[in-house]
C-alpha cells in the first residue's frame, strides 16, 4: 500500500510539473515603471493608450499619481508592468518625487510641438538619475508625433540628446497609438536584458523588478519539484 501511495505521489508531482512547464504563473516578472515629464505632454494618455488601447480625448490633469497595469511578453516571458503615472504640474513635484524610488523603468515624456517641454528634460533627467537606482532604464518619448505640422523639436536633436545621456528614444503618438506599444516594450526588453546579463541584481531590495521564483528561467524548464511548493508546510 505504501509503495502504491508513493507511486501516486510521483504521478501527482509529474502532473504538476508538466502543468507548470506549459502554463506557469500568470507572469514571471513584475517591472515597475514611472512616467514623468511636463504638464500636458500626454503622460496619462500614453498610459491609457497602452493599457486600454484607446485614446482619451479630454484627459483631466492627474492629481498626484495614478497607476495602471498590463502583462506583456518579452522573449517568451510574461512580464507584468506596474506603471505609475505622475502629475506633471509643478505643485505635485514634492509628491511625485517619492514615486521614483524602486522604478525599473522610467518613461520621460515631452511634447514635440512644445519646445519648453523639451527644454525641461534635463531637470527631469536629474530627478530621475538622483531618485532611482543606477540600473533604471530611462526611455525618452517625444509624444504627439501625429502633429507633424506643429513640430517644434526635431527628431535628430532629441535623438542626439538621448544618445548623449544614454537614453532609449522613440517618437510616439498617444492619439494614433503609433509606437506607444514599442515605448513600453523597448524599456522592458532592456530591463530584461539587464537581468539576463546579470547587471540587474534581483535580490537587491527595490530593484523595481520582482521575480516569480517558480517560473522557468532563461528558457530552461524546471524538471524537479519546487521545494517551496511541494515541501511540507510544517
Amino acid at each position: 500500500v505504501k509503495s502504491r501511495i508513493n507511486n501516486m505521489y510521483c504521478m501527482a508531482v509529474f502532473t504538476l510539473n508538466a502543468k507548470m512547464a506549459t502554463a506557469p504563473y500568470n507572469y514571471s516578472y513584475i517591472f515597475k515603471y514611472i512616467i514623468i515629464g511636463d504638464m500636458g505632454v500626454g503622460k496619462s494618455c500614453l498610459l491609457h493608450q497602452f493599457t486600454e488601447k484607446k485614446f482619451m480625448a479630454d484627459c483631466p490633469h492627474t492629481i498626484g499619481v495614478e497607476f495602471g497595469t498590463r502583462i506583456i511578453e518579452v522573449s517568451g516571458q510574461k512580464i507584468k508592468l506596474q506603471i505609475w503615472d505622475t502629475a506633471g504640474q509643478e505643485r505635485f513635484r514634492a509628491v511625485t518625487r517619492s514615486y521614483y524610488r524602486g522604478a525599473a523603468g522610467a518613461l520621460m515624456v515631452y511634447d514635440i510641438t512644445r519646445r519648453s517641454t523639451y527644454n525641461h528634460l534635463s531637470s527631469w533627467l536629474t530627478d530621475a538619475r538622483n531618485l532611482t537606482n543606477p540600473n533604471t532604464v530611462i526611455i525618452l518619448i517625444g509624444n504627439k508625433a501625429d502633429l507633424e505640422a506643429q513640430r517644434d523639436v526635431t527628431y535628430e536633436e532629441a535623438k542626439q540628446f538621448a544618445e548623449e545621456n544614454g537614453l532609449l528614444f522613440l517618437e510616439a503618438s498617444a492619439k494614433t497609438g503609433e509606437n506607444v506599444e514599442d515605448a513600453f516594450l523597448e524599456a522592458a526588453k532592456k530591463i530584461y536584458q539587464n537581468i539576463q546579463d546579470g547587471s540587474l541584481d534581483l535580490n537587491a531590495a527595490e530593484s523595481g523588478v520582482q521575480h516569480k521564483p517558480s517560473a522557468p528561467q532563461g528558457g530552461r524548464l524546471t524538471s524537479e519539484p519546487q521545494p517551496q511548493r511541494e515541501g511540507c508546510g510544517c
Partner: protein
Amino acid sequence: MSTCCQDMTSRLKAAKEQTQDLIVKTTKLQAENQRLEVKAQVANAFLSKFQLTSEEMSTLRGTREGPVTESFFKALGRVKQIHNDVKILLRTNQQTAGLEIMEQMALLQETSYERLYRWAQSECRTLTQESCDISPVLTQAMEALQDRPVLYKYTLDEFGTARRNAVVRGFIDALTRGGPGGTPRPIEMYSHDPLRYVGDMLAWLHQATASEKEHLETLLKLVTMQGVEENIQEVLGHITEGVCRPLKVRIEQVIVSEPGAVLLYKISNLLKFYHHTNSGIVGNNANTLLTTIEEMHVLSKKMFFNNLSLHASKLMDKIELPPPDLGPTAALNQTLTLLREVLASHDSSVVPLDARQADFVQVLSCALDPLLQMCTVSASNLGTADMATYMVNCLYMMKTTLALFEFTDKRLEMLQFQIEAHLDTLVNEQASYVLTRAGLSYMYNCIQQHKPEQGPLVNIPSMDGASLKAAMVQFDSYLASPDSLLMLQLNYLLSATLKEHIFKQSTELVCRAYSELYAAVMNPANEYKEPGAILHRSPQQVKTLLS
C-alpha cells in the same frame, strides 16, 4: 413396422418428457442470464454515476502534504456532483443505497476540503517574499474553498498574515537599506527633511497597498460568492495593519520635533492627500492604515494651530509701540510673512478645493484676529490722526497680503470696511486741518450754529466784514497751493492711492464748507454790506481752483 414406429414414438415421447424439463430449465437460465446482464449494466452505470474511479479516489486522498493539482479539482467536482445526484435515489425505493452513497460522498468531500485547506494554508505561508507569486492552482483552491466559508476565511487569514509580514519587512528595508548599492537611498536618510521623509514613506505604502490589492484580486478572481470586494478590503486592512506602528512612530517623531508652522502645515496637507489617495484603494471601510494616517493628520494639524496660536499669544504678550513713521511693526511684518508662507503652501497643496476652503477660515482667524487686536491695542495711545494713519497702514498691509490668495474674499471685505472707517476719520481730520489753517474754521462753526433769532450774522463777534476779508486772504493763499496744507501723517501712508483719496475727499469737504459760508454771507438777512467784495470767489470758482 408398426411396432417399430410405436417404439420410436414412445421413445421420442420419453425423450421429450425427459428434455422438457431441461429446456424449461435452459430457457429459465437464459432469461436469468439476460436479467443479470441488465442488472450488471445497471450496476455499472450506477457505479460510474455514483462512485469515484480509483484514480479519482487516490487523487483526492493523496498524501497529507502532497501537492494539489488540476485533477484534484476535477475529482472534487465529481464528488460534489454525485452528492447532488444521489438525492434522486432517495426518491426511489433505493433509499438505503442512496443514503449510504450520500454519507460516503459527504465524508469524502469533507476530507478533501480539509486536505485542500491544509495545502492552501501551507502554500499561503510561503508567500512572505516581496514578490508574491500566486499560482493558478491556489486561485483555483480559493474558488473551491468558497463552499466552506470557514476554511475559506482561515486560508485568507493565513494569506493576509504572510503578506502582512512581507509588507512590514519590505517597509523596514526601504527605510533602512534602500535600493541596490544604496540607490535609492534608504528613506531614513531623509529624516532631516521632514516633508520628503514623510512623503517617501507614504508613497511607498501607497504603492505597496496597490500591489497587495492586485495580489488579492488575483487570488480571489475565481471566487463567485457575494462579498468578495469586502473580503479583499478586510484582508487588505489586515495586511497594511503591520506597517501602521513603524509609520506612526516615525511621523509622530517628525511632528513633535517642532518643525515650524509652515512645515507642519505642509505635512498635514500631505497626510490628507495620502488619506484620500489610499482610501481609493482600500475603500472607506474601517482600515487601520487609513485611521493611522488620519490620526497623524489630525495631530499635525493640531500642532500647526497650536504653533499659530502660540505665535499669536506671543504677539499679544509684548505689544510694540507704533514706530515714528506709523508704519507696520516688525511683529506685524513677521506674522504676515508667516501667514503668506502658510497660505502659499496651501495654495500649492494637493488637498481638494472644499477642504482647502474650510482650512482657510481657521488659519485666517487663528492668525489674523490676534494681529488685528495687536494693532488696535498698540494704536490705542495715539492721537486721532496718528491712530487712523497707523491703522490704515496695518490694515492695508494685511489686505495686500491676503489679496494674493483664494478664499479670502470675506476677510478682504472686512479689512476694506475697517480701512474705510479710518479713511473717513482721516478725511475729516484733513478737512478741518485746512479750514483751521485757512482761518475759516471759526466762521464755519458760527454759521452752522447760527439761528435766525440771534439776529444777523454780521453782528456776531469776529463775523464782521473786515474779519471775513482778512480770513479770505489766508484762504486765497491756500487756494493758490492746496498741497501746502497737508497733515504730516498723510505722508506716512503706505498707499499713494489712499493718500490721493483722502486729499480729494477732504478738498470736497472744504469746498462744501465754503459754499455754506458763501450762501450765508450772500443772504441779505445777515446784513453784510457789499457781500461780493468780502467773498469775491464763487463756490464754483473755488471748486475749479481746487480740482
